[in-house]
């Protein structure tokens, strides 16, 4: 067995400070739990503020000290993200206080050794923005103790050797043991500083005085007692919330906060070995504004991806374009991201040189970006339909999410594959490439259409189209190819029966031969 313990000594503070901006983070900060300082940042520590002080004492030391409220839910959510990141590496992950324990012996070979795995783990944890201490040991609790104790124990002889671990554990201060912390003063009074001091005492007396759990934990850390652990797993649905430090009305601070949640979302998706298909960002509005003027309690923004992704930067880019278009009815105090739509598939291979597949993926990303900013119905594909009316012979549909080649075969009436492109350039083109959205009426003189003040010369035609009587949109037209004054070819038609109104124009311009 080889255990990595990832200890997060400043988890609560970092989870609180994540919602703050850079300048605020450098101010002295302290987290309060029941009027008592629980954690402080470096600026506050420099002024002498220590955990355990009363609120008033801390304020006396540093009058401009900023306070935050400790929040166990917030801590748990931040810890959850670390657990999810770890789950991407090994299915054997357990929690011990603010330490995440990973059993990695079974996946060392896959990741190319403990050092390579460690480097990958650190890299994966980096976007979450926590300072971590990692230790490695053959027992779970041993690794956790070492991680809490010192920063440099991720390698060394204790990683593989139980005897070395036991020697090292002898030096560990006794208060790092969970139950030991409760009896810390009593143990200190008895002159028991290190774990080795405990071992020299008679076990029965020690158990009677401090409880069975102290010895039990000591034995599990030293590997003399089995230490089975329930493995954690990533939940089916992802939900994370973030309370903003101040009211946000603009997209930019919202985006900054949402970036944090997106990192957690990506960690969750990675833990499930899947990729995100769609997620929803909810911006909860201040209750003060909710009462008036029918402001909804929250504004929801659903982001759907054409191709599943676990790239936080890409998700953020999409969210940025979407947020830029959203008008918030009221300031936002809290963000929530929910997601349950994942696609389980192997991650695409990274390629050194661009190939067709990576190109297709890149194009999909481009289309997603365009869609996010311009709107879903602005990115279109062209489809041919079996209809003789030119305005109905091709339709614009939303560009498919799937790779382009499958587009034409997807719907039944489509004919786009029927004219084989290979047999193309022989005969004359039957119809123009450009079709006006609406036929443009032309005046008539001497039985010929008038276009831009000149008579059009009809060169070819008529091509009679008489169809559509079944759907009420009957077209009875004679199409001609005509030449405009400058030599360009245009497509005109003469309305045949029924001409009810003599004032109705007879000739229409319908297309250009582009």
């Amino acid at each position, binding site marked *: 067995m080889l255990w990595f313990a990832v200890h997060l000594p400043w988890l609560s503070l970092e989870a609180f400070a994540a919602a703050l901006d850079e300048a605020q983070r450098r101010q002295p900060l302290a987290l309060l739990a029941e009027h008592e300082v629980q954690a402080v940042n470096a600026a506050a520590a420099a002024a002498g503020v220590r955990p355990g002080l009363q609120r008033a004492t801390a304020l006396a030391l540093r009058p401009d000290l900023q306070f935050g409220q400790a929040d166990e839910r917030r801590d748990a959510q931040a810890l959850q993200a670390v657990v999810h990141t770890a789950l991407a590496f090994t299915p054997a992950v357990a929690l011990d206080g603010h330490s995440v324990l990973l059993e990695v012996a079974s996946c060392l070979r896959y990741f190319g050794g403990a050092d390579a795995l460690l480097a990958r783990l650190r890299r994966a944890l980096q976007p979450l923005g926590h300072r971590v201490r990692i230790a490695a040991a053959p027992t779970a609790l041993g690794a956790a103790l070492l991680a809490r104790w010192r920063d440099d124990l991720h390698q060394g002889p204790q990683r593989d050797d139980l005897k070395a671990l036991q020697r090292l554990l002898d030096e560990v201060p006794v208060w790092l043991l969970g139950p030991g912390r409760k009896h810390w003063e009593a143990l200190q009074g008895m002159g028991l500083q290190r774990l080795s001091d405990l071992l020299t005492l008679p076990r029965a007396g020690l158990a009677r005085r401090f409880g069975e759990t102290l010895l039990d934990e000591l034995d599990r850390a030293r590997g003399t007692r089995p230490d089975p652990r329930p493995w954690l797993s990533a939940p089916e649905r992802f939900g994370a919330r973030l309370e903003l430090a101040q009211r946000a009305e603009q997209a930019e601070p919202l985006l900054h906060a949402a970036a944090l949640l997106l990192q957690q979302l990506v960690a969750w998706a990675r833990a499930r070995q899947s990729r995100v298909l769609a997620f929803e960002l909810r911006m909860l509005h201040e209750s003060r504004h909710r009462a008036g003027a029918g402001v909804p309690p929250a504004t929801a923004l659903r982001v759907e991806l054409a191709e599943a992704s676990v790239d936080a930067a890409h998700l953020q880019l999409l969210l940025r374009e979407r947020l830029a278009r959203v008008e918030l009815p009221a300031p936002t105090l809290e963000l929530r991201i929910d997601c349950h739509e994942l696609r389980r598939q192997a991650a695409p291979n990274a390629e050194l040189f661009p190939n067709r597949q990576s190109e297709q993926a890149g194009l999909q990303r481009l289309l997603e970006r365009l869609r996010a900013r311009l709107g879903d119905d602005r990115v*279109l594909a062209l489809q041919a339909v079996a209809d003789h009316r030119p305005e109905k012979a091709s339709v*614009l549909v939303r560009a498919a999410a799937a790779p382009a080649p499958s587009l*034409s075969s997807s719907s039944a009436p489509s004919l786009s594959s029927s004219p084989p492109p290979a047999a193309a*350039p022989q005969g004359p083109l039957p*119809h123009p490439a450009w079709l006006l959205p609406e036929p443009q009426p032309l005046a008539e003189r001497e039985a010929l259409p008038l276009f831009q003040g000149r008579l059009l010369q009809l060169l070819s035609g008529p091509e009679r189209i008489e169809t559509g009587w079944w759907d009420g949109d009957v077209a009875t037209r004679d199409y001609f190819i005509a030449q405009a004054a400058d*030599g360009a070819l245009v497509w005109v038609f003469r309305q045949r029966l029924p001409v009810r109104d003599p004032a109705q124009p007879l000739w229409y311009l319908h297309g*250009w031969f*582009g």
Partner: protein
Amino acid sequence: MTVSPDLFAALPEPECLHPALWRAHQLGREQQQPAVASGFAELDAELPGGGWPARALTELLLPHPGVGELRLLAPALAAVQGGGRSVLLFEPPARPQAGTLAALGLDLGHLLLVQGRAAAGGAAAAPLPAADLLWALEQALKCGHAGALLAWLPPRLPPEALRRLQLAAQAHDGPAFVLRAQAALARPSAAPLRLRLAAAGPDELALHLVKRRGPPLAQPLRLALPPALSAPARERALRLAAEQAAAALPPALKTRPRAASASS
């Protein structure tokens, strides 16, 4: 100290020094990327690099949409699609016809449109604002995964917009065409290749090379496009044009052609 003539003889010709150098009477060469053949041999002979340049903007100036621009570009676009890459149309001036494009050799599965108006439902929305259009075009150029781009841009644009697009185009591994109204001819442009298109007759296109990396071309190129007219109809059109030239009268007033409604 005199310089012997042998020294000059020993010097290499300037155009051999670096691919970015060429003499005023020569055509520039395409440096990084082979150009995409236009499908018209006469045109390829006059284009630097022997085709439509990749990684650069090509500006086409039209008197109005529909002079034959799609028929001119179709062979190159089909070649790009033949490589499995997509063609993107930005804000086309009218609705493209699927059947005609397929007949021109284009693959509809690899054709995408980005446009503001006439969405799927038929509800005519407004055209895209110029800022959005330029943004979308720049993104497409920068991403480098699109095969070929055609963008119909408004004639009035700040000059830095085109410069920005030209810079973005350097990441785009394929031809990028910007189509604008002829009014833009007088304005400077950052595109290294500019052409003015005009109809020269039935199924014929006159190409003026306004700007290229090479000597100016005095005569416009006349290209025969893939025909829209059948051979008899084309003959009739030419005969009519000759009659009109002979009559030297405004064509619409006197020599009214007979309505060619009998047959084609």
